[in-house]
């Protein structure tokens, strides 16, 4: 190991540990102090101190307790000055004693049931249906994943002030409207978990669909969502859809390097160099998916992951198990009738039964997808395969007029230039 790579390894471990412990501590302090801003501020100061001290002195035996002690020491004057928090100080002291079990990031939870619940409380509160979807996303990234407001703003290509205001408003609504800090009751849990998974998948796609030329922060979002997904799975190991979503995200990330050429052009699935796919990561994700499927409570994320697994496991595009892919799309459509899913199913039909049948299936969706660029792009591909070149060009032009992602636009322009 070179000095640089060792240093990078320590930085990576440091970053993971800080993120992990920070989220535990913020979640616990929000419960104790009932003040989101104060909790974040105290932990913010402690994380800054950690980032200064740990690279020099090494990561402490129990990083969580270190952060809590530092947060407490630095915040103690503030807490003493304010009568509202004075009686809460004793509770923080008690928490400190509870938090003495060492914690290894990525490993099994050893910190006791209390702080496990706190982070779940925090996730469910951030994704409460009484908050707008945009507020849920911003608050989850800021508070649970610990992203700074400017990073969230850059990742979503939104002015910083807009994100800051969304977060302020959301926290105010949590406080003033009495949104509770708790994990939903079993009866509400399925619907509320769906909200959480939707937020995570939205964050993932925002990053994953970003083209290679776009900001690094945007692409990092996919990794942030994956971290949130793995946290959720550790907190709720018996929820198959949470496992399904984690498997889905990891199956995508395992192949992310093959999605773009070195100069940022999209490489479509049939043309990807499968040698660049991360086989170990694919195997790991498939294992998670199998774990979910064994629970026999199927859902849309498990089915999507199963479809992606079919692709990830196929030695080549031609050797993909298209019959299985179509069967999985059929089940997915039963659960989630959506024209976009129907479009993807139509493309699988084209591989299984030929482009004519695929084209017929695609064309049936025109009424609902006429404004969607990928509908026209898919038609373009199939029309070209059956030799209807003039119509294919028209479809590509329509797709280009509707597309906004620069890498997708470039692909369509090249297609139009070729014939």
């Amino acid at each position, binding site marked *: 190991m070179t000095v640089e790579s060792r240093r990078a390894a320590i930085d990576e471990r440091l970053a993971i540990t800080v993120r992990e412990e920070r989220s535990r501590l913020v979640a616990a302090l929000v419960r104790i102090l009932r003040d989101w801003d104060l909790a974040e501020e105290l932990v913010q100061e402690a994380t800054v101190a950690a980032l200064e001290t740990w690279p020099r002195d090494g990561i402490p035996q129990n990083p969580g307790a270190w952060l809590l002690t530092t947060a407490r020491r630095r915040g103690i004057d503030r807490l003493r000055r304010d009568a509202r928090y004075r009686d809460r100080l004793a509770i923080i002291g008690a928490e400190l004693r509870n938090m003495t079990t060492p914690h290894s990031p990525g490993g099994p939870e050893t910190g006791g049931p209390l702080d496990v619940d706190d982070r779940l409380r925090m996730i469910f509160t951030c994704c409460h249906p009484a908050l707008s979807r945009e507020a849920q996303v911003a608050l989850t990234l800021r508070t649970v994943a610990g992203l700074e407001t400017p990073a969230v703003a850059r990742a979503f290509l939104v002015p910083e002030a807009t994100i800051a205001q969304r977060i302020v408003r959301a926290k105010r609504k949590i406080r003033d*409207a*009495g*949104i*509770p800090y*708790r994990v939903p009751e079993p009866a*509400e849990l399925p619907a509320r978990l769906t909200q959480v998974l939707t937020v995570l998948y939205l964050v993932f796609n925002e990053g994953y669909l970003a083209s290679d030329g776009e900001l690094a922060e945007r692409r990092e979002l996919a990794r942030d969502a994956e971290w949130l997904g793995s946290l959720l799975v550790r907190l709720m190991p018996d929820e198959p859809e949470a496992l399904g979503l984690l498997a889905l995200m990891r199956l995508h990330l395992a192949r992310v390097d093959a999605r773009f050429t070195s100069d940022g052009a999209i490489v479509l699935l049939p043309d990807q160099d499968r040698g660049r796919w991360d086989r170990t990561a694919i195997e790991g994700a498939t294992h998670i998916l199998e774990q979910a499927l064994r629970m026999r409570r199927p859902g849309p994320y498990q089915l999507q992951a199963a479809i992606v697994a079919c692709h990830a496991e196929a030695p080549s595009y031609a050797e993909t198990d298209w019959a299985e892919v179509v069967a999985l799309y059929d089940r997915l459509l039963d659960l989630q009738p959506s024209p976009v899913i129907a479009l993807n199913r139509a493309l699988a039909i084209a591989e299984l039964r030929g482009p004519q049948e695929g084209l017929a299936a695609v064309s049936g969706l025109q009424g609902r997808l006429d404004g969607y660029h990928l509908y026209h792009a898919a038609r373009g591909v199939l029309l070209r395969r059956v030799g209807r070149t003039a119509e294919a060009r028209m479809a590509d032009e329509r797709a280009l007029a509707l597309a906004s992602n620069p890498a997708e636009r470039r692909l369509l322009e090249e297609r139009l230039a070729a014939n």
Partner: protein
Amino acid sequence: MKYMVLIADSEDERAATPEADRMAAYGQIRSWWNEHVASGQILDGYQLQPTETATTVRRDPAGNVTVTDGPFVEAKESVGGYAIIDVADLDEAISLISGWPAEAALEIRPVIEA
């Protein structure tokens, strides 16, 4: 926490509902209401006369008052009643209000308690 629940529905649809069905719906609402008054969750509330009986009084910064006929917003749905509830938090409010036994849109707003 105390919340005000504004109960809105479509007066046109209500008017178009056969008398017998309307009476049955009122009966369901009455028993739901009484049950939650008894449990202490509903403190107060009323059904309102239709919006055609509404009068809006507007006061501008100079203190001039104008009186007009009708509610302040003309919409397909209008407020037809309200309740003041007292529950632990928004989740309890949502779960209580989700049991409202008729088609409606219900807005939950925390009140400012002095």
